[in-house]
């Protein structure tokens, strides 16, 4: 059972304290990630979807310990990342990599792209000079770049090419899990398709697992095997892709699905949510979603729903499901 669970996140929290006043009193927390649990299996793509400010990027970064978690566990093949020392953490970095959203900002403008791709090899002391150069050339060709471009600087590349460099860099040390934080949202449509295809190919070729973070449900639907929907720091629903898209149980998922524009517009009536996502500093009591919910129950504003397994592998945090009133 444990063997094929690559990553197991348990009740992970990341709070940012907020201070104010003369003596910088602590007046509250921004609960960016507020008790999230899920796992990622080997060779699996878990899609994580949510609107801006829901905490999905913070979650990705906290898992990699680029942000220190406030509490909770992140188990990588059974070892808790949150408790690792500096040296062990560095070793673990070989297993997990990240691809960031903005291809422009994620490359050091003063380094050649070859040096950027090579950097993980240098850091972990893999191979000698010649082997590294060969590896960089190989990686560049794998992601569809010419090896001769290794001596160029990022400003000489287009957005799509820069994202390819980012992917090559993430692949350099053969990680098993890649956290992709909105890897295509900054790209044009035709380039987006190229990068998505590339990421698919690489996943299959190297047997990778992805935690694929995006705000675009169409992209998630195309990429993911299972999908988790986040709202205000919590997981609202998590299920396999076919299950989630055909049988969404959380009203938020339902609304989200109906809101996505499509080239083949459904005849179905659209569920229009009113209002904006509330501030994570001061979320509504009870179920965070209840002020915008079209199926709100009286209990929703009082009690926070727990994430519960409704059917095999389908988790929902909603009072409608507690009541069995689907």
């Amino acid at each position, binding site marked *: 059972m444990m063997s094929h669970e690559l990553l197991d996140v348990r009740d992970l929290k990341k709070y940012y304290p907020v201070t104010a*006043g003369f003596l910088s009193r602590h007046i509250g927390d921004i609960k960016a990630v507020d008790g999230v649990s899920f796992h990622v299996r080997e060779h699996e793509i878990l899609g994580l979807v949510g609107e801006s400010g829901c905490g999905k990027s913070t979650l990705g970064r906290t898992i990699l310990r680029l942000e220190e978690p406030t509490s909770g566990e992140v188990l990588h093949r059974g070892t808790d990342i949150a408790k690792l020392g500096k040296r062990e953490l560095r070793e673990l970095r070989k297993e997990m990599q990240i691809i960031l959203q903005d291809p422009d900002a994620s490359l050091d403008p003063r380094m050649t792209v070859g040096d950027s791709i090579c950097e993980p090899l240098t850091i972990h002391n893999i191979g000698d000079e010649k082997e590294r150069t060969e590896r960089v050339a190989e990686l560049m060709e794998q992601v569809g770049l010419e090896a001769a471009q290794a001596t160029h600087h990022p400003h000489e590349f287009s957005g799509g090419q820069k994202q390819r460099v980012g992917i090559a860099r993430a692949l350099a040390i053969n990680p098993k899990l890649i956290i992709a934080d909105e890897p295509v949202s900054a790209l044009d449509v035709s380039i987006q398709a190229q990068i998505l295809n590339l990421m698919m190919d690489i996943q299959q070729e190297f047997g990778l697992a992805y935690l694929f973070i995006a705000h675009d449900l169409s992209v998630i639907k195309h990429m993911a095997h299972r999908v988790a929907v986040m709202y205000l720091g919590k997981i609202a629903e998590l299920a396999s892709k076919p299950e989630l898209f055909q049988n969404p149980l959380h009203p938020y998922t339902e609304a989200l699905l109906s809101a996505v524009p499509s080239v083949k517009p459904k005849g179905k009536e659209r569920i229009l949510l009113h209002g904006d996502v509330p501030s994570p500093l001061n979320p509504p009591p009870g179920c965070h979603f209840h002020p915008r919910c079209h199926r709100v129950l009286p209990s929703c504003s009082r009690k926070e729903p727990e994430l519960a397994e409704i059917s095999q592998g389908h988790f929902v945090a909603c009072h409608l499901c507690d009541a069995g009133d689907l």
Partner: protein
Amino acid sequence: MGKSWLRAYILKRLLYAVIIAWGILTVTFVLVRVGPSSPADRYLANMTASGQDVSQIVEAIEARYGLDKPMHEQYIEYMGNLFQGKLGWSFSNSMPVIDLIKTHWIYSFQLILLSSIFAALLGVVVGIYSAVKQYTKTDYIATFFSFVGISLPNFWLGVMLILVFSVKLGLFKTYYDTGLPLFSLDNLKALVLPVMTLGTGMLAGYVRYTRSAMLDNLRKGFVTTARAKGLPERTVIGKHVFRNALLPLVTIVMFDLGSIVFGGAYLTEIVFGIPGLGQISFNAIFANDYPVVVAVTLIGTSIVLLVNLVTDVAYTYLDPRIRYD
């Protein structure tokens, strides 16, 4: 949408200002007191000339002003007096420091005030015009001259102005006449060269800052929105762009003020022989007259700290996005 946090912020800043001022005073005090001579030396020189017994008199003077005590005691005593608002006694001028400052501050003030007004008004207008007409001949000329202006050493400019307008053309006196009544045309005329000396650099700076602040905002989305609404260009520039350019401008103008009081204004006073605070503190340093040096430093520092605080508070009204914690 009140600014209730503002009071706490101002309090915090005032407290902080007092600490900084105290730090600066301490450093100044120590620096002046470790200097090569004692304030009594000045008396000493006079006494030796008249053939009196020197050592006794020095002792007497030092005892009279507490200069024979260890330095930390002098420091404590001085700070104690300062706390009660006593600025001390000027040895070299033989008068209370407070009176000395009272008679001289106006000379610095009128110079700085007139120069600032001249530089700010003209600088902002030229800067805006230059930005709006970017890449035209007018802009290039304005930019070039602003470079020239910031590169001119102002003390040298003062000397050159005297050379041309006073020595060669004889239009002005070579020295500032302190005998003139404050609000008179003659006084204004006497200040023309000093204001040009101090104001040119400031003016050039303002042209540059205004131009770049305007350019930073001239291509922003809200400017296109304003034009798309059909607003006349005057409103677009004056209301939408300038309001946004004002913030960085205010910062720099205020920041400059601090360095001008004891930099440019100081040198200008020396070139034209204007007996302002700069001149006094300069003479006091040479005379080891530490109460004057410390007092003038205190005034300068307080002005800078106060101006900074006022600027920061003004920000919150100029830019609603700013909020301090």
